[in-house]
């Protein structure tokens, strides 16, 4: 009946928050591949499914509201559909929010590809008594519409049947009538069609409308063609702003008609969601409620993770001891035990934190609460050069900077995201706490708590200062827009939270694991060479480096031992304490270290405070630096983050010692 070849490539599109990921997971099971789109850090997910003799490959395009290439996500989606020519374009539509969802449909229709609509969340619409006539919808849009509930796996077979049915068929021609603009579109089409190569590759009507909308991607395709001069001259004579509005207006007019004819009683009611919002985003209660939830999330993250962390810690210690005792030659045992096992262990120990934190974040995200947090915090955050969506990553940073930086993916605007990534390392993560506890305990016994609290405040101040400076000097110009949907609250599904958590945990282990491995091996080599020295002692290369940089840190009131400990701290900041134990010969006993530090005449309250501040601010740990590179794909920004942190830490510690030393020393 159909002569479809066995391979069917499907582009999966849709607005954000319509259950696109759930559908993708349900369709592809777990046969998925996660990567990045070439050149951008937008995540690319693809998967496949074998269905009735067809291998159906599904590529998950970024969630977008429209397809004018104004953001990276939209450009990626446009480029895939137009350049890689999928056999079927599958749009996931939130049936309970038809009008806005169909706007994307109108734009997808212009590509002239076979289309299928998955009318998702149809249970919600039916529960509230709507009736949606799928046949009418199909007749108007020229694409089969299938009722689905992705989270429960309902409608998948019908959807796959529809996909196979339209694949590689000549698509039904459906177009939006643009009224008065048709004459302009027709002129532009004629001009585009003079270029045979371009018009054989791209639909000319699509190009004409995108030119009116000033689409940078289409402009880029035409910029070096001979016809561009004429097009440019023509475009400069029409009111494109007016035209852009007319196009949007016409699309929504068609949508209104389609919805009126196909849907009875499609009057969205969200009484439950509305009453939740009356409390959760209340003008005065909203922020306090958020802070309480946040505190609860932290409590849960750390208390629930603690036993697992102890287990991992003990496991690695055991393994390290075994290797140290049984592997020969000795240098290899040391490399494996002190370097690889110690280093990898110091990364994996955070895995329980990461898993639990992403589970909580996944629940908050899928429920729709995250969008409310961005709404509540936007004003405050935008005052300091950030925006509402920066709030979550920064707060997570107090737990661990690493997942925090991964969480910045929810910020679409590139500049806002970069600034957020750059200031996240100043959020004092839990790994820095042992350093504060040690020094505050040793030198500020009666007011240790206050001193630790001050560290957190100094970190926040550094973040605010940095964000404002970057906004004022580096990312000048038009501030990003904040136009965000507040989706209705929904119950998160176990599956979607599970998949999200697994993806993030896997990325953490993979990225941090490779980079930290390099880092720890390098530090191990410095601490153990030349052969035969005591690990990390004055005679080792790292000790020599410590001696060399001692004059540099002397103005801060630090000696070579502290310099070496700070070098160790680059791997992971809690190693500073371990490093000092070795250097002060305190064994594994923290009380002995406290006594040794107190007995060391060169240390007092002022340089102890300086050291705590320095530990807080100086460069992110290796794993975080690795993630910064992974997320920004920019050596420049990764280096900036490292160098800037050191410079800032140095400046402030210098100020503390030079001013505070004479005053209190």
């Amino acid at each position, binding site marked *: 009946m159909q002569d479809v070849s066995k391979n069917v490539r499907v582009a999966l599109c849709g607005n954000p928050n319509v259950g696109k990921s759930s559908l993708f997971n349900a369709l592809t099971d777990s046969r998925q591949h996660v990567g990045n789109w070439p050149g951008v850090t937008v995540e690319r997910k693809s998967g496949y499914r074998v269905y009735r003799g067809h291998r159906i490959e599904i590529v998950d395009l970024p969630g977008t509201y429209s397809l004018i290439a*104004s953001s990276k996500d939209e450009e990626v989606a446009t480029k895939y559909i137009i350049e890689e020519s999928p056999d079927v374009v599958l749009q996931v539509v939130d049936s309970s929010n038809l009008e806005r969802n169909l706007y994307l449909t109108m734009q997808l229709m212009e590509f002239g590809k076979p289309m299928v609509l998955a009318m998702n969340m149809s249970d919600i619409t039916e529960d509230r008594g709507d009736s949606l006539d799928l046949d009418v919808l199909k007749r108007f849009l020229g694409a089969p519409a299938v009722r689905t509930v992705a989270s429960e796996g309902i409608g998948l077979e019908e959807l796959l049947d529809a996909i196979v049915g339209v694949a590689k068929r000549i698509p039904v021609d459906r177009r939006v009538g643009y009224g008065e603009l048709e004459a302009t579109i027709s002129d532009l089409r004629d001009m585009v069609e003079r270029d045979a190569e371009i018009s054989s590759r791209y639909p000319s009507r699509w190009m004409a409308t995108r030119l009116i909308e000033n689409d940078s991607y289409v402009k880029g395709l035409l910029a070096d063609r001979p016809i561009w001069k004429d097009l440019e001259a023509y475009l400069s004579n029409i009111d494109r702003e007016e035209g852009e509005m007319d196009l949007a207006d016409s699309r*929504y007019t068609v949508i209104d008609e389609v919805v009126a004819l196909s849907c009875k009683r499609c009057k969205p009611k969200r009484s439950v969601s509305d009453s939740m919002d009356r409390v959760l*985003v209340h*003008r005065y209660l909203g922020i306090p409620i958020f802070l309480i939830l946040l505190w609860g999330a932290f409590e849960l993250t750390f208390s629930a993770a603690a036993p697992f962390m102890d287990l991992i810690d003990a496991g690695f210690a055991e393994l390290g001891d075994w290797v140290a005792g049984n592997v020969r030659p000795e240098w290899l045992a040391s490399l494996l035990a002190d370097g690889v096992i110690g280093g990898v262990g110091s990364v994996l120990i955070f895995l329980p934190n990461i898993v639990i934190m992403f589970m909580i974040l996944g629940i908050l995200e899928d429920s729709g609460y995250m969008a409310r947090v961005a709404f509540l915090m936007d004003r405050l955050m935008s005052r300091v050069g950030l925006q509402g969506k920066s709030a979550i990553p920064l707060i997570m940073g107090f737990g661990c900077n690493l997942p925090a930086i991964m969480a910045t993916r929810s910020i679409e605007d590139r500049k806002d995201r970069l600034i957020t990534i750059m200031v996240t390392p100043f959020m004092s993560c839990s790994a820095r706490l042992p350093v504060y506890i040690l020094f505050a305990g040793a030198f500020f016994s009666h007011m240790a708590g206050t001193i630790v609290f001050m560290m957190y405040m100094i970190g926040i101040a550094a973040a605010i200062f940095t964000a404002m400076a970057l906004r004022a000097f580096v990312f000048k110009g038009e501030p990003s*827009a904040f136009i965000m*949907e507040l989706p*209705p609250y929904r119950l998160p599904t176990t599956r979607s939270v599970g998949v999200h958590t697994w993806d993030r945990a896997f990325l953490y282990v993979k990225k941090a694991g490779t980079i930290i491995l390099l880092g720890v091996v390098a530090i191990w080599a410095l601490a153990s060479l030349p052969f035969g020295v005591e690990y990390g002692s004055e005679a080792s290369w790292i000790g020599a480096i410590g001696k060399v940089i001692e004059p540099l840190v002397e103005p801060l009131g630090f000696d070579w031992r502290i310099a070496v400990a700070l070098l160790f701290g680059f791997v992971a900041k809690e190693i500073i304490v371990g490093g000092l134990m070795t250097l002060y010969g305190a064994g594994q006993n923290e009380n002995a270290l406290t006594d040794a530090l107190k007995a060391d005449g060169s240390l007092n309250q002022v340089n102890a405070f300086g050291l705590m501040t320095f530990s807080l601010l100086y460069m992110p740990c290796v794993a975080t630096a690795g993630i910064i590179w992974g997320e920004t794909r920019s050596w420049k920004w990764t280096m900036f983050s490292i160098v800037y942190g050191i410079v800032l830490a140095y400046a402030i510690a210098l100020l503390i010692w030079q001013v505070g030393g004479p005053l209190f020393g």
Partner: protein
Amino acid sequence: MFDETKREGPSLADLPIGAKAFVESVKAKGSIRGRILAMGLVPGTALEVVRKAPMGDPIEIVLKGYHLSLRSGEARAVKVSSTPVGTLRGIEKEGR
């Protein structure tokens, strides 16, 4: 078209909580313009201001059956009127 340079009508940012209005035109420039239009803020669309965030910004509105938040900066670029007839395009949509 109207001579819009002479007549600066009220914008979405001027509306109090609970106010209902119709979009008259969108004055935003560049890529923000496209985003505002794509979200359904096209001339003639009925909308209602639901609430404002702490410190009065951003604002939350309902249109086309869904909730949208935007900063007052963007909201100022959306001109509104109390009746859908103020626009020549004026395709009257369901007048809530």
